[in-house]
């Protein structure tokens, strides 16, 4: 990420800083004198309001005399609300490495941090930097309907155990960057199960199936045979449905 060291940052009077949690001073005793600012945009680069920016300072570790990794600081986290022009600013930050992500409304948006690589930002004391525009994608729901007429699929119990692991079935999508998103089981009806996953609009994704069962696509092609495989699908649009069938 290209990073701008802004000695005199532009003012962002419309940005409202909201700390949703008490930020506990960290063990390093670093002064809270650094700032970050930037904009939140959609896939087309247009500003997005009505969103939050989550920042997360990495926990710090050191190796002790025996080489064991010991936590020095848990880091801390906070949220700022995005202004109507898509701008945000977070002040009074301590030095450290930060992950900064835009988060919108659940079910309507997907953070760029969940869909593409968003590198962390090192921040030194007294530094004010502008981060690259943070992406916030509008999402559609991709439904994956699995015809399972013999109820071959066995779902995990509440502890995550599957009595016959070969009969597991999990599915998710892989975006262009390689990011994987697991689909959740949305509905179970007689002979079929429907999984759903939110996918950014106008993104081509691939299915990632994990199952010991033989799974076929709608035209009969084998999606997986005793293991797992990838299957390309068309661009995601709102309420797109893919049908799979268990042999």
């Amino acid at each position, binding site marked *: *990420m290209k990073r701008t060291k802004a000695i005199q940052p532009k003012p962002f009077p419309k940005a409202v800083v909201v700390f*949703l*949690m*008490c930020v*506990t001073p960290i*063990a390093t005793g670093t002064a809270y004198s650094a700032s970050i600012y930037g904009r939140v945009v959609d896939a087309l680069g247009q500003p997005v309001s009505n969103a*939050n920016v*989550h*920042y*997360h300072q*990495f*926990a710090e*570790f050191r*190796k*002790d*005399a*025996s080489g*064991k*990794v010991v*936590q020095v*600081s*848990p*880091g*801390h*986290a*906070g*949220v700022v609300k995005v202004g109507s022009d898509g701008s945000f600013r977070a002040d009074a930050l301590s030095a450290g490495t930060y*992950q900064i*992500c835009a*988060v919108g409304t*659940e079910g309507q948006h997907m*953070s760029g*941090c*969940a869909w*593409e*690589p*968003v*590198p*962390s930002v090192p921040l030194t004391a007294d530094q004010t930097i502008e981060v690259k525009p943070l992406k916030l994608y509008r999402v559609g729901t991709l439904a994956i309907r699995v015809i399972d007429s013999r109820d071959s699929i066995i779902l*995990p*119990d*509440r*502890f*995550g*155990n*599957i009595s016959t*692991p070969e009969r*597991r079935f*999990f*599915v*998710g999508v*892989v975006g262009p*960057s*390689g*990011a*994987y998103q*697991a689909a959740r089981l949305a509905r179970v009806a007689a002979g079929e199960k429907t999984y759903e996953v939110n996918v950014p609009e106008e993104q081509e994704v691939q299915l*990632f199936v*994990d199952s010991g069962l033989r799974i076929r696509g709608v035209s009969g092609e084998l999606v997986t045979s005793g293991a*797992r495989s990838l299957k390309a699908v068309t661009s995601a649009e709102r309420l797109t449905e893919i049908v799979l069938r268990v042999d």
Partner: protein
Amino acid sequence: MAFRDPDGASDIAVTNLLINDALSGASACYIAFVRASGLVLLVNDAGDAGGTPAGTFVLPGSGSATNSQCTVSGIGSSFNQNGGVLTLSLNISFSSSFSGNKVLYVAASDGSATSTGWQRLGVYGVSPIPTGSPMPVSMAPARPIGIGPVPVSFAVRHASTASRVVTVLMNEWLSATSACYFGYHEPSNTLVLYDNGTWHSLLLNGSGSVESQFCRVYGLGSSWTATGLAGILRVNIELKAPPAENQLVWVSASDSGGSSSWQTLGTWMTGNVTSKLELNLSAMPIDLYTTSGSGALISGCTSAQTVRQCIQKLFQVNPSVQNNWRSQGVTGVRFFFTLAGGYHSTPFDSAGNVSAAWASNLQLLFSDLRSYGITTITPTPVLDTWSGPPAMVIPRTVETCGVTKTLNFVPWLPYGLDTIQGFPDRTCDNQSYQLAARTPSDIFWGWDRFFNLIDTVLNKAQTERVSVNAFDYYQETNMTDFTVMARFIYDYNPGGFSTDVLGVLRSKMVSNGYPAAQIIPSANIPPSPTPATGNCSSYYGDSALLLTLVSQLAAVAGPWASFGVPPHHTDFGSLRCYQSSDTSPSPSLMVSTPVYHSPATATDIHSQKVYPTNAETEQYSTSFHNSIWSYLAYRGLTSNVVVFGETNPVDCDVWNPSNATAFVNGYRFSTLHSNASNRVYMRPWHRTEVGFACNLSPHVVNPPFNPLTF
């Protein structure tokens, strides 16, 4: 009698029962049973098992066989097979001349002629039992199991109330050598314990203890009560180390009226009992295991020894070696081995195959440990940079998480390391698991090498019949803050071939005869809350002390769960606590591995927390171990083996015997101890390498790591 065979009861060929005063077939009631045919064979009076039997018959049936000692009848006898267990019931009556307290020796062999050897499994009083006074009468319980402490009551009948003495000896044979041997003298109300030529005395006033190399006797729980000529000596006994064989218990009584003979009154069932005390031995110089002078590498040994001879010194029970680990109850060993010669361990040859010489040395180590009574091993590959020489740490400028960055790479890791602090790449935080740079193909060895190596280690362990208990294949992982570590669960490679690392490792466990889900990385040590009792729930609902442990569980669960830094707020100075208003980082920013695995059946987390006062250390320990039990119950993992490591029992780093005792006591007060102590293993840490070792080897681990307290 029940006989278990992991290959199934049908694999059992012959079982034997020998009833006699001692392990001799002559003048014994010595019975063999051939499972396949149901044949019962009674050996002749001479004890010639290969000669003409005294009699035979077949089960089921109404036949019988008789010798001078006993009669075995088909009526009332039976056998059945259920899974891996063969149960045999024999209807035996004894001749009047064959009387007194007799020992039951039992053995079995399988189709490959592998034998259990004779096991002392009990004592049976054949009527008429000895009369007269003074005389030992009974022992309760007659078959203590484990190593104690167990209050055992010895009932005696005296001829006089003057000068009464009761003497007890526990051993495989009637010998004071290597025995737990003590006597009680009523006039002085004193118990004396024999210890390699000297006697230690203990006034029986309800407190204090005495110990020998083999056992301890506690004043608390010990007493003498007498009513007329009858007396009961109650002794709270603990075996310091579980002997490899079950122990017989002989008792004699004396008073002014005379002395009794020794009477066998019970069997202390210690054979094959795992003490649950293991030792964490840091790096093992496997390349030099038999090399002259290599003993000098280990603190406490010398250049006059090889590493192998040093291992013998440290583990083989020998009264002349002070603090011998096996004598202290250690029955398991964990050690590291480097992958590229970092510390005298070079498992691969120039072609990348597992070196035959290295594998041979490893097998020799396992064989030696097994012969010294070490039944469990945990060999952990070193995945840190010191696994090889510094030249193998290669800086390379790569694209990681969308930026160009220089990282350090080593051939055995599928990801890069920060060039300054050396930690795994976390350039894009939680997404690093998926999107951080992979080790360039010209550097990364690939997974097959790793799999072949683990397969070889397991194969050698199986060959030498040592157990693998909670195989920690990656030391102290933290998949919360360093999600790339989850590539050791499932190496997701969106641009190429993904590898189900845990899945393959589990298959290696199975193919080598070990339980699949007993292989799992250990979790990194928890943070230090202030105060020591500080605790809260994390995003997952378990204790925030266990965040790294639960993250690992989530990484194993695949699409069913997510891991990485969860939403939290910081409390107690270091804990990442959660309440419903916590939104940052968002759950949507956590990641999943795309492949499901069932939860591991072992839980391995390391802890080495010390607070300024022992009271705080104990409080923390109780809180931590309570949290483990809550986690196991919450996750349906209450049958898991639980392993703790890294707590040093001696003066080293932040540890000393006092705070280590506080840590152990904290565990003893925990719900984990009260609910699952039979599945909890302690692996105190000890560095053996000269230059790094705090103490000479062998050192004192017990106390405070007394196996009986686990």
